[in-house]
């Protein structure tokens, strides 16, 4: 027994120490040198799971039920095995959508529904109140044990204003406000609080281990001795078995395991430290096994302490206080004080974090939405709302603690501590279907979540909450024993006659059955809405998408001038401007004023706002500022399609770029070809010009030039001029035909007449060369639709070529015209030297002339190419027959117009 001032003094000192740690943590965070950025701190902060329940409740449970205290910790053990996948997904989602509470998480997933947010908050408040009461009871009991004489009644029936527990509650409220509601942080980070929680986790572990070690090796001679002595007592011996002598309630063991496993995910304080306060999701790798290790260590001595206490004090003692009474009884007051501090630590840690988390929810998801409905609030422009929001939070903290105290007064005696705690677990477990379903099932809808939550909550109230209040004496327990209005099938602890289960498992079974059943059934009732689908995809696929760069599901008109002040209203102008600047920088925009008011910006603003007032309220505020066009499912799908189309487009873009590169290469080579042609033409033109100019200058400068010489020169000049003009004409001709600009005057041509005409024209040339021409034609020939002049041009070209190459004096040219069903073929055979094998195709190229250089007759080198072009224009072809024994035989064919078209193939290169 210690003097009250001592105990109070130590308690306060410890709390101040916690506060100092918290301030240190906050200060370092502001400096940017966070102390909580290690996985060890993260793991220790998770240990806030162990509250006064662990300190007092577990030992009490162990004393009455042996190992049955353990399932509460096996559940989290199993849950942490999956943490790397489950929790990491939650953290990623929360980070990307700036989710700051469970209510936010669930509401955000199901289309940012305010109704859901409010319902979850309500369930949380109602469910957590017993848990808070548990802590208060623990502190009260501990305090009483420390200050009263052993054996004195633990709780007095004092009026509340004289009840020290009431002031404990108020003090705790004050500390909580100091820890977590001094200022608004849009990310809801409380680095100082996390540091303090980690610290107190160490303290409570060490204290408990100290007491445990004392019990085993101080009071007894080690574990062997302790257990041997326990086994000697039959009642104690059965505590060491699974069945406890009455048969094993397997389903209860399993239910407790499952319940605690779900709770470690759904409890607000766990969500706060594991998800919201998470600094780096990779810390999860370490924390996922360190946290279970912590649980193992702190539970190591629970059974020994319980057995030691039972052996020491005998059965019937208040086992929940063994951690304190054992040292006290042995005169180790220092150790008892340490244990008291440990228990106090456990209780306050839980209360602080839980109260902060719940007050955030209440403010963002319950109060704010209601306020937003009032016009007055919405229209209040320019007012800084931060102080107002803080005020709401602080009020919520005080209210929660007072409610906890109220429950403590009303129902604290109904169950042992553990029982009270389990009721809270069962309440928050109702979130699991909506939460986990929302993370892995895209089909979950808002209505489904609402239906499931309502059903589960209702059943929880009916099967757990009400009976607990009734059993505390505030109600007649008639309805519990006989069912409401005497209807036995509706007995709250044996619905539909299921009486085999204990009250907890029974409640759990029915509530979760209704919850999951309605969730799935109602979700499948109709397809998800547009907003839900978009959120569903962002949640379920969070590992595959990057939400910041993902499709922005919004369509509307906004103005930057509206969005900036909106953000400023809740976060302060300076911070809002800084955030806009950061956003502008990320998007590569020079200044925040240059930001386009598009979907991405609106989402950015909404997300930042959600950190301060919750996503549902943020949505309302943003919607009030922008003119939003409601999205329907088609729009969402279209936006999604666009996003995936964009991906497909960029892929196609790469392909097209490749094709373009190749085409460019081709064009370049064509360009080079064109250059070559141009330089060839200029060369050909300049050559005669050179002689003309040179000879003309010579004649001009030399007045004494002999007349004969002058005459010779003039002849050359004239010849070259002719050559030049011929060349120019042919180049123009070639260019016209190739570019398709030539004019074609098609008539019905009589080829026989044409051929005769051509031969006649060249008679003089032939006579001069001494060459003879033979003409072979069929008697009759159908008319061909073609340009007569052009065909003459071709014939003259071939004839003159032949004339150039036949030997002088003995030249012979054979012209043959043949026709068949497909067309006509004209062959011009000469008895000249022929074309050498290597040049057979070359001669059809521009500026190429047959024969060797020295004996090359006057020509432009363009005749054959032009002739070929003309022939090909009419759909025919020209070639050099290569099976002739001697000489060259140039042939060309012209098809009859089968489909009635002399197709224009003038664009052949």
């Amino acid at each position, binding site marked *: 027994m210690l003097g009250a001032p001592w105990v109070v003094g130590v308690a306060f000192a410890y709390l101040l120490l916690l506060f100092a740690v918290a301030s240190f943590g906050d200060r370092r965070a502001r400096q940017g040198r966070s102390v909580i950025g290690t996985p060890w701190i993260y793991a220790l902060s998770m240990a806030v799971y162990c509250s006064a329940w662990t300190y007092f409740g577990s030992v009490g449970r162990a004393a009455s039920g042996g190992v049955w205290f353990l399932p509460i910790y096996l559940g989290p*053990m*199993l849950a942490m095995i999956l943490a790397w*996948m489950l929790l990491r997904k939650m953290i990623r989602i929360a980070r990307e959508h700036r989710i700051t509470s469970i209510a936010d998480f669930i509401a955000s997933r199901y289309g940012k529904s305010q109704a859901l947010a409010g319902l979850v908050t309500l369930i949380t408040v109602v469910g957590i109140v017993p848990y808070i009461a548990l802590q208060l009871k623990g502190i009260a009991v501990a305090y009483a044990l420390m200050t009263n004489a052993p054996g004195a009644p633990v709780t007095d029936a004092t009026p509340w204003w004289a009840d020290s527990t009431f002031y404990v509650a108020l003090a705790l409220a004050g500390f909580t406000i100091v820890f977590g509601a001094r200022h608004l942080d849009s990310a809801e980070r409380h680095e100082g609080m996390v540091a303090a929680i980690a610290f107190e986790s160490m303290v409570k572990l060490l204290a408990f281990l100290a007491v445990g070690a004392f019990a085993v090796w101080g009071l007894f001679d080690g574990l062997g001795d302790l*257990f041997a002595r326990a086994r000697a007592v039959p009642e104690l011996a059965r505590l060491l078995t699974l069945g406890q002598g009455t048969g094993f309630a397997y389903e209860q063991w399993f239910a407790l395991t499952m319940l605690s496993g779900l709770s470690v995910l759904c409890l607000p304080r766990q969500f706060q430290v594991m998800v919201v306060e998470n600094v780096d999701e990779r810390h999860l790798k370490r924390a996922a096994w360190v946290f*279970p290790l912590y649980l193992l260590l702190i539970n190591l001595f629970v059974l020994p302490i319980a057995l030691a206490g039972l052996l020491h004090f005998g059965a019937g003692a208040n086992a929940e206080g063994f951690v304190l009474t054992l040292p006290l009884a042995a005169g180790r007051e220092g150790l008892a004080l340490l244990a008291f501090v440990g228990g106090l630590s456990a209780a306050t840690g839980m209360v602080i974090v839980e109260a902060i988390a719940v007050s955030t929810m209440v403010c963002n998801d319950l109060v704010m939405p209601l306020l937003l409905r009032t016009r007055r609030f919405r229209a209040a422009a320019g007012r800084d709302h931060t102080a107002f929001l803080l005020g709401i939070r602080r009020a919520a903290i005080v209210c929660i603690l007072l409610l906890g105290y109220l429950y403590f007064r009303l129902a604290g005696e109904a169950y042992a501590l553990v029982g009270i705690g389990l009721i809270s677990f069962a309440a928050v477990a109702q979130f699991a279907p909506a939460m986990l379903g929302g993370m892995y099932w895209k089909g979950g809808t808002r209505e489904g979540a609402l239906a499931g939550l309502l059903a589960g909550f209702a059943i929880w109230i009916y099967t757990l909450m009400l009976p607990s209040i009734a059993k505390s004496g505030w109600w007649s327990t008639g309805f519990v024993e006989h069912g409401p209005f005497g209807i036995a099938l509706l007995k709250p602890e044996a619905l539909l006659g299921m009486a085999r289960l204990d009250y907890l498992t029974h409640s759990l079974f029915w509530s979760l059955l209704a919850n999951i059943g309605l969730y799935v059934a109602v979700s499948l009732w109709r397809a998800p809405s547009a907003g839900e689908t978009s959120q569903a995809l962002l949640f379920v696929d969070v590992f595959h998408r990057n939400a910041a760069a993902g499709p922005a599901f919004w369509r509307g008109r906004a103005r930057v001038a509206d969005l900036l002040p909106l953000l400023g209203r809740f976060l302060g102008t300076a911070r809002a401007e800084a955030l806009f600047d950061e956003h502008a920088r990320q998007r590569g925009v020079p200044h925040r004023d240059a930001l386009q008011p598009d979907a991405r910006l609106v989402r950015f603003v909404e997300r930042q706002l959600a950190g301060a007032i919750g996503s549902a309220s943020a949505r309302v505020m943003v919607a009030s500022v922008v003119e939003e066009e409601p999205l329907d499912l088609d729009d969402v799908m279209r936006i999604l399609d666009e996003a995936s189309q964009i991906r497909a487009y960029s892929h196609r873009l790469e392909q097209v770029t490749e094709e373009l590169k190749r085409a460019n290469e081709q064009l370049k080579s064509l360009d080079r070809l064109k250059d070559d042609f141009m330089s060839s033409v200029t060369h050909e033109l300049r050559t005669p010009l050179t002689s003309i100019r040179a000879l003309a200058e010579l004649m001009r400068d030399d007045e004494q030039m002999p007349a004969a010489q002058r005459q010779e020169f003039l002849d050359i000049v004239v010849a070259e001029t002719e050559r030049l003009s011929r060349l120019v004409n042919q180049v123009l001709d070639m260019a016209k035909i190739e570019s398709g600009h030539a004019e074609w005057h098609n008539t019905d041509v009589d080829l026989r007449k044409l051929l005769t005409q051509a031969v006649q024209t060249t008679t003089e040339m032939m006579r001069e060369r001494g060459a003879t021409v033979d003409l072979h034609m069929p008697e009759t020939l159908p008319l061909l639709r073609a340009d007569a002049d052009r065909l003459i041009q071709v014939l003259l070209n071939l004839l003159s070529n032949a004339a150039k190459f036949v030997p002088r004096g003995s030249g012979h040219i054979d012209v043959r015209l043949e026709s068949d069903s497909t067309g006509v073929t004209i062959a011009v055979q000469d008895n000249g030297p022929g074309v050498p094998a290597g040049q057979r195709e070359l001669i059809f190229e521009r500026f190429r002339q047959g024969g060797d250089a020295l004996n090359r007759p006057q020509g432009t080198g363009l005749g054959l190419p032009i002739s070929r072009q003309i022939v090909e224009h009419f759909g025919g072809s020209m070639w050099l027959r290569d099976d002739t024994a001697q000489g060259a035989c140039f042939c060309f064919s012209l098809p009859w117009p089968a489909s009635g078209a002399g197709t224009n193939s003038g664009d052949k290169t």
Partner: protein
Amino acid sequence: MLESLRSQRLLALFCAGLALLNFPLLALWDRDSSMLGLPLFPIALFVLWAGLIAVLALILEGRED
């Protein structure tokens, strides 16, 4: 969710833990015998638990392959 080897191992460990720590496998340890002078059942429970933690640590801290 189950793309990586680590995730698959974790899921397997979870199922193993669930089986080991529940009836009927758990009842196997419920015998009135002692190990090192200590009652079997509580010791077995804690040893199992510690074993699960050890395997969990191995999987998590190991290289991601």
